[in-house]
C-alpha cells in the first residue's frame, strides 16, 4: 500500500520565526492520524503545506503520490481551521459551488448535497442563506464541503472546535465512517482526549518539531509511568507506610492521592498487593498514561518537576480557551 503523505525534512519560516522545523513524516493510506500539540505549535502550517497553500522553504513533500497537492486537490477533502462561508449564498448553492470547484459533475450533484444535508440534520436549511446558520451548523456545512467529492484523503483542522457534544459525536461517527470506507483521515486538535478517542496513530508537534509519531498503543506502553495511584481510607498521609512496601521507589501526594512510583522491573500486580498489605486502601489502580501526560513528559524532558504543572496548566488553558471561543 502506498503512502498518502510523505514529508522529508520539511521546513517553513515566517520571517525570523521558524514555524515548522525539519519534519519527517509518513502517513500510510487508510490510516487515521491525529496531529496534536498546543496552539501555535505548527500544526496548521504543516497542514497548509500538505495542501500546497503554503510552500516549504526546504525539504520534500508528496501527497497521494504527487509532488504537491496542487495536482491532486480534487482527491483531497480539506476543512481548514480558518473556515467561512459566503454569507449571502444559499446553503445548497454554496455546497453545489464547492462540489463543482472540486471537479464534480453538475449532474446528480444537487441530490447528493441534499442527501448529505439530511445526514447531518440540516435538510431544512438548504434554501436558507449561510449567514442565517449558527456557527455549529455552518461547521457541519463546511464538513460536507470537504467530503462531498468523496476524497481519498481527508484533512480536518480542528474539526471539533465550536461543536456541542451531540454534534461532536455526530462528527466523530462521520469520521469513523470515512475511515471504515478506507479513506485516509488526518485531523489536528489540541484537545488530547478527542485524539485518543478517534485516532490509531498520533503525531505530536511542539515548537515546529515532531516530538512523537507512534500508534496509540505503542505510546501507552512506551510512556508507561510505572506508577500506581492509591487512595487510602481517611485523609492521613500514609507515604511512609507505603514506602515500606517492597519495590516502591518513591511516594508523593498529588491532589489527595498517593502517587507511587515503582522500582524498574518491579511487577505492578505484586506491588499493588504489597501496598494493600501495608495500608487500608479505598481505591488502587495502575496509572494509564494519557496523551496529556505523554505530551508533558516530552515537553519537560521527563524530569517531572514544578515545570510539569505549569505546562499542564498551559495546555489546559489553551484547550479551554478554544472551547470557549467555539461554544
Amino acid at each position: 500500500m502506498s503512502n498518502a503523505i510523505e514529508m522529508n525534512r520539511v521546513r517553513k519560516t515566517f520571517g525570523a520565526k521558524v514555524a515548522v522545523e525539519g519534519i519527517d513524516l509518513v502517513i500510510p493510506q487508510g490510516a487515521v492520524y491525529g496531529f496534536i500539540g498546543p496552539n501555535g505549535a505548527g500544526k496548521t502550517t504543516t497542514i497548509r503545506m500538505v495542501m500546497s497553500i503554503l510552500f516549504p522553504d526546504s525539504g520534500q513533500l508528496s501527497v497521494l503520490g504527487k509532488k504537491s497537492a496542487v495536482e491532486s486537490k480534487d482527491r483531497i477533502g480539506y476543512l481548514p481551521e480558518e473556515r467561512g462561508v459566503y454569507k449571502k449564498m444559499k446553503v445548497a448553492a454554496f455546497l453545489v459551488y464547492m462540489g463543482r470547484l472540486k471537479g464534480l459533475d453538475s449532474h446528480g450533484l444537487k441530490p447528493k448535497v441534499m442527501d448529505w444535508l439530511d445526514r447531518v440534520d440540516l435538510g431544512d436549511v438548504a434554501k436558507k442563506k449561510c449567514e442565517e446558520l449558527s456557527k455549529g451548523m455552518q461547521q457541519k456545512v463546511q464538513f460536507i464541503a470537504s467530503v462531498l467529492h468523496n476524497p481519498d484523503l481527508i484533512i480536518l483542522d480542528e474539526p471539533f472546535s465550536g461543536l456541542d457534544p451531540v454534534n461532536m459525536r455526530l462528527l466523530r461517527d462521520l469520521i469513523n465512517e470515512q475511515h471504515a470506507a478506507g479513506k485516509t483521515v488526518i485531523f489536528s486538535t489540541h484537545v488530547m482526549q478527542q485524539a485518543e478517542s478517534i485516532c490509531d496513530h498520533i503525531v505530536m508537534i511542539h515548537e515546529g518539531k515532531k516530538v512523537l509519531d507512534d500508534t496509540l498503543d505503542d505510546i501507552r506502553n512506551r510512556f508507561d509511568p510505572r506508577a500506581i495511584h492509591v487512595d487510602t481510607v481517611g485523609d492521613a498521609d500514609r507515604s511512609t507506610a507505603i514506602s515500606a512496601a517492597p519495590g516502591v521507589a518513591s511516594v508523593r501526594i498529588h491532589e489527595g492521592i498517593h502517587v507511587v512510583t515503582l522500582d524498574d522491573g518491579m511487577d505492578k500486580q505484586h506491588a499493588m498487593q504489597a501496598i494493600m498489605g501495608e495500608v487500608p486502601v479505598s481505591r488502587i489502580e495502575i496509572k494509564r498514561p494519557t496523551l496529556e501526560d505523554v505530551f508533558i513528559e516530552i515537553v519537560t524532558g521527563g524530569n517531572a518537576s514544578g515545570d510539569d504543572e505549569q505546562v499542564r496548566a498551559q495546555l489546559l488553558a489553551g484547550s479551554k480557551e478554544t472551547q470557549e471561543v467555539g461554544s
Partner: protein
Amino acid sequence: MNMNKIIRVASREFASTAMTKGFIIGALVVPAVMAALIPLIAILSAAAQPSADKGTIYVLDRSAEVFDDIESRLSPEEVRKRWEDRAKRASDFAKGMMGQSGNASDGVEQAMNFIKTPEFRVISTAPDADIEEIKTEIRQQLTSGVELDDPMQKLLAVIDIDADAANKSNDSKGYGSYQAFFRPKLNEETVGEIESGVRWSIRERRYDNAGLDRDQISELASIEERDSKEITEEGERNESSGIATFLIPVASLVLLIIATMTGGQYLLTTTIEEKSNRVVEVLLSATSPMELMTGKIVGQMGVGLSLLIVYNSLGIAALIAFNRLDMISGQIIILFFVFFLLAYFMLASMMAAIGSAVNDMREAQSLMTPVMLLMMIPYFFFMPVVRAPNSMLSTVTSFIPPISPFIMIMRVSSTDPPPPLQIAAVILVNIIAVFFFLWFAAKVFRVGLLMYGKPPNLRTLIKWIRMA
C-alpha cells in the same frame, strides 16, 4: 491552471455581482432614468422661467423724432418676431453642431410655447412733462402694492431722450443720448429688449438725418457666415471645433473609467469579503491562488464589459438619433474594448493585491488613495490631450501605463487619431505592463490571502513578493 475551475470562480463572481438587484438598478436603471429625465428637466426649467414682464413704457422724447421708431420697434408683434428668430437661430446652431440639417420650425414652435415674450405699451409723454412726476408714479405703484386691474397699466420704465440725441446740434459737442429709469426687479431680457430698442431707434434716426439709406447701411454691415473647412490628406471636412470634437473623447474617457472602476471596485470588495469571511481557505482547498485570482478578475471583467456594452449601445443609439454615426467607426469601438481590457487588467491587479492584503474596507482606504489618484490623472490631461491629440505631451503620456489606455481612448476617438503604428506600439507596451501588474498581484495575492493582522506597508509588500 485548471480552466474549469477558473470558469467556475469567474461565473460565481459575475453572478454574485451582476445578478443582484442592487447592481442592475445602480448600473442600468439609474442611467436610463437619467436619460429620460434630461428632456424633462429641460422642459421644467423652461417652464419655470419667470413670468414675462408686461406694462407701460413712458418715453419723454425731447428730440420729437425718435418715438415712432421706438413704438414700432417695441410693439408686441415685433418683439415676438425677434424672439422667434432668436430661438430659431439657437436651434439651427445646436443642430448644425450635431450635424442635422433641415427645417427646424417644429422645434421653434415648440420652444415658443414655453418662452414667454414681454409685452409693452409705449406711450409718449408731453414734451414738457416733468420726469420727476413720472418717477413718482412708479414709486407710488411700488409702495401701494395694490394689484392693478389691467396688467398693462404697470409702469416698467421711463426713457428720457435728449433733444440732440438724433440730430447733432450746431455746436461741436456731438450727439446727445438718453437716460432710462427702470422699475426694480425686471427680467434681464426685458431691460435688454427696451434698451436695445431705444438705441436702435436713435441710431436709425441718425442715419436718416445724416442722409444715409437704412437698408444700405445694414447691407454694408452684414457679412454672410460660412462654415470653415479643414484640408486633410483625404480631402476636406468641416472644421473640428465646438462641442462635437470634445463630446466623443470625453464620453469615451468617462465610459472607460466607469467600466474599469466598477469592475475593479467590486473585485476589491469581494476579495476583502472572502478574506474577512474566512471563506478563502476553503476555496484554496479546491483552487490554487492563481486560479482563484484569475477567476475573480475574469468574473469582474464580465461585469465591466456588460456595463460597457450597455452604455456603448446607448451611446451609439444616441448618435443614430442625431444622425451622426459618422463620428465613430468600428475601429474605435474595437479599440475601445482593447483599451478597456488593458486598463481593467492593470486596475484589477492593483485591486486584487490590495483586497488580499488588508482585513477590511477601512484598511483598504489608505492603500486605495494612490490608486485613486492614479485614476484621476487622465482627467487632468483631458484638455491638453483633446486639444492637441498628437502633441508631445499626448504621445508621451500614451506610453505610461496604467494611465496610457485612458489617454489613448481620447486620442483615437478624437478627430485627429494617432497613426496605426503608434497605436500598435502603445498596445504592446500595455500588454507588457499588464503582465507585470498581474505578476505583482499574483505574488501579493498568494501571500496576503492568509495573512491576518496589521495591514502591510510598502516594505512588507516587497517582502511578500520576495517570499512568494
